[in-house]
């Protein structure tokens, strides 16, 4: 169990690991996540289950090596084992046939979109996909989503590929063109999810977002991942991670995500000093 059976860098510093864990592969549903630890003393890192293969007994995870722990994880290779892999956690996505569903992924947030998009398509939805990234190199899962969406739009902030601008600009364009959209799912950086939410609220389109607050145990034990939904405190790990976008307090979410920014900077400083010393 927990062995990395394949590793691929799908974009700069963005990795796709296929990991052996037959039980999670069998039990997981779209929208659920796992918690990973790579080494003694390591942080518990929540990652969405992007895919699973029941016959091979594997789950697929995608992560970006941006913080201390994800950089540690990126050091592992095929044949290495994750120290801990706990899951599946969180509530599965509520899947039904909405008609036309628009699935939106921003940056590395495109990874959690894929399994939900697959489940929506399997339930009979016609899918429109919008994915975006800062620049072309950072775009992920275009082929995979292209295979299940009847229409896939791409946006890059710098215009290096697809539309120049944000995914919300593309969404606004679609809606202005009277494209039929009955449901929106958006996952990505919190400001992007907030912008999508504001846009669809005006047009009264039901919208779900998958939130990624700071989390520790993932079982509802610590309350560190609390988010405010419709004025009520919820725990993203057990009540979510998906919530009705129009009820989420994104400003609070963004503040709470920054709780340890100073500590993270300090850790990065130590790391870069160490590298200089090397």
């Amino acid at each position: 169990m927990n062995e990395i059976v394949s590793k691929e860098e799908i974009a700069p510093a963005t990795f796709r690991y296929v990991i052996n864990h037959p039980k999670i592969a069998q039990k997981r549903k779209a929208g659920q996540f796992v918690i990973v630890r790579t080494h003694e003393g390591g942080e518990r890192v929540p990652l969405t289950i992007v895919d699973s293969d029941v016959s091979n007994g594997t789950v697929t995870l995608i992560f970006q090596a941006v913080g201390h722990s994800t950089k540690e994880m990126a050091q592992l290779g095929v044949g290495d084992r994750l120290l801990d892999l706990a899951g599946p956690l969180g509530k599965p996505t509520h899947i039904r046939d909405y008609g036309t569903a628009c699935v939106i992924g921003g940056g590395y947030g495109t990874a959690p979109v894929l399994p939900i998009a697959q489940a929506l398509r399997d339930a009979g939805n016609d899918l429109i996909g919008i994915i975006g990234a800062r620049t072309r190199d950072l775009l992920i899962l275009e082929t995979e989503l292209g295979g299940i969406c009847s229409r896939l739009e791409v946006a890059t902030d710098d215009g290096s590929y697809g539309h120049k601008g944000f995914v919300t600009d593309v969404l606004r364009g679609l809606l202005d063109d009277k494209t039929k959209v009955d449901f929106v799912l958006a996952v990505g950086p919190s400001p992007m999810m907030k912008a999508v939410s504001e846009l669809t609220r005006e047009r009264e389109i039901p919208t779900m977002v998958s939130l990624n607050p700071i989390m520790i145990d993932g079982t509802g034990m610590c309350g560190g991942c609390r988010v405010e939904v419709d004025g009520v405190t919820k725990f993203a790990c057990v009540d979510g991670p998906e919530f009705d976008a129009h009820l989420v307090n994104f400003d609070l979410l963004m503040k709470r995500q920054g709780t340890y920014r100073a500590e993270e900077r300090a850790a990065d400083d130590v790391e870069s000093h160490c590298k200089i010393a090397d």
Partner: protein
Amino acid sequence: MADHPSKNPRQPMPEQPPEERIHNFNEVPYGYALEQAMAEASRCLRCKKPRCILGCPVEVDIPGFVAQVQEGRFHKAAQKVMETNLLPAVCGRVCPQETQCEIVCVLAKKGDPVAIGRLERFVGDWEREHGDSTLPDLAPPTGKKVAVVGSGPGGLTCAADLAKMGHAVTVFEALHELGGVLVYGIPEFRLPKHILKVEVDRLRQLGVNLMTSTVIGKLDTIEDLMAEEGFDAVFIATGAGLPVFMGIPGENLLGVYSANEFLTRSNLMRAYDPRQGDTPIAHGKRVMVIGGGNVAMDSARTALRLGADHVILSYRRSRDEMPARLEEIHHAEDEGIDFELLTCPIEFRGDENGRLASAIVQKMELGEPDSSGRRRPVPIEGSEYEEPLDVAVVAVGAGANPLISSTTPDLEINKRGYIVADPSTGATSKRGVFAGGDIVTGSATVIEAMGAGRKAAAAIDRYLADGVWPPPPPEKPAEDGEDQG
């Protein structure tokens, strides 16, 4: 016969001086030296009908092991304790002996009781450092499989008993480390992790299969364990794993923690020592802990060791009503925790970045006794004041985690979400499923959870033998006799 109590006083516990210990996470009491332990053991009067045993939820043969200590036969003493309790070094440290075995000690009538807890700790420590780790004999395999959900004190005790009875036991732990509250909740300075680890490893030696990072209710449900995985019985001992907040404005500000989160970061994730753990924690300079129980004391003393200049403990009743152990209250006071009694924050205020900046605190006075028998705190109108803060830790209790109850529809729960179980057997509304510890009773003590684990193991053993459901309560123990003084 021992001397008159006054001529043979209770041996004091040597401990780290407060001014030193507030700067480290090392254990506070050092433990008895050999001679001290023997001298303390000599105070036991060997009552014919010892009440201390009845005061212990797992009925350790206290006079039996104390007699061995007095004679200097420490390994024999350890074996005696471990007949009923595989976690002596843990229980010697965290049990509230003063309200259990020691309060009923006959010496307590006229003076200080035998320091049973300190002796148990001594024995556990001696065995760890010098013992040959002989384990109790196991009954022949029964061919029955039992799942224990949760590796806290209740689960570990139940698992050990069942293994000794010859059943094949698997313990499922959701977190990455074994021990439940002993590892995520109780700080290093009260229960060093390496001590816990040695005692938990004894279960492995008994042949118990220990599975970490396995979240029952998610990976497998209770029903899956029985229908798919072939377990004949299940014991649920998942603890009080749901933080309780006060429901006041500003509780989601940065810097406001549940005690569960604050302690989990520091203990389980080792945030107290950046060399051991990568997980960050806020190092507040002005910290307020809200609550009056052991968890509040642990949080306050942790905050101090993380570098706080000023730690306030805000409790809405008076000192007399504090649920924490007296020893913990004393330790906290000695270390300079500032007790603001009869106060309660009614609002947290933040700065422009959403970080905690202060609490608005209201003074309270005691009114008539409430349903718990304690005098009810009544707010004093107009008494509010503002306390500048950068960290607050809410330690006002814990609730029932719904992961298992929400995925086990035929498991009866009460209106507060706790599992309904027969107190004498642990049997729940679902055939073959037992429960005990905090998930049944709400927040209680380590040893009470262990007692529930022991009772459930006995009932599970009977159920596996005869298949009678629900298992009848155990036969009543013999009538209490008068102790001799």
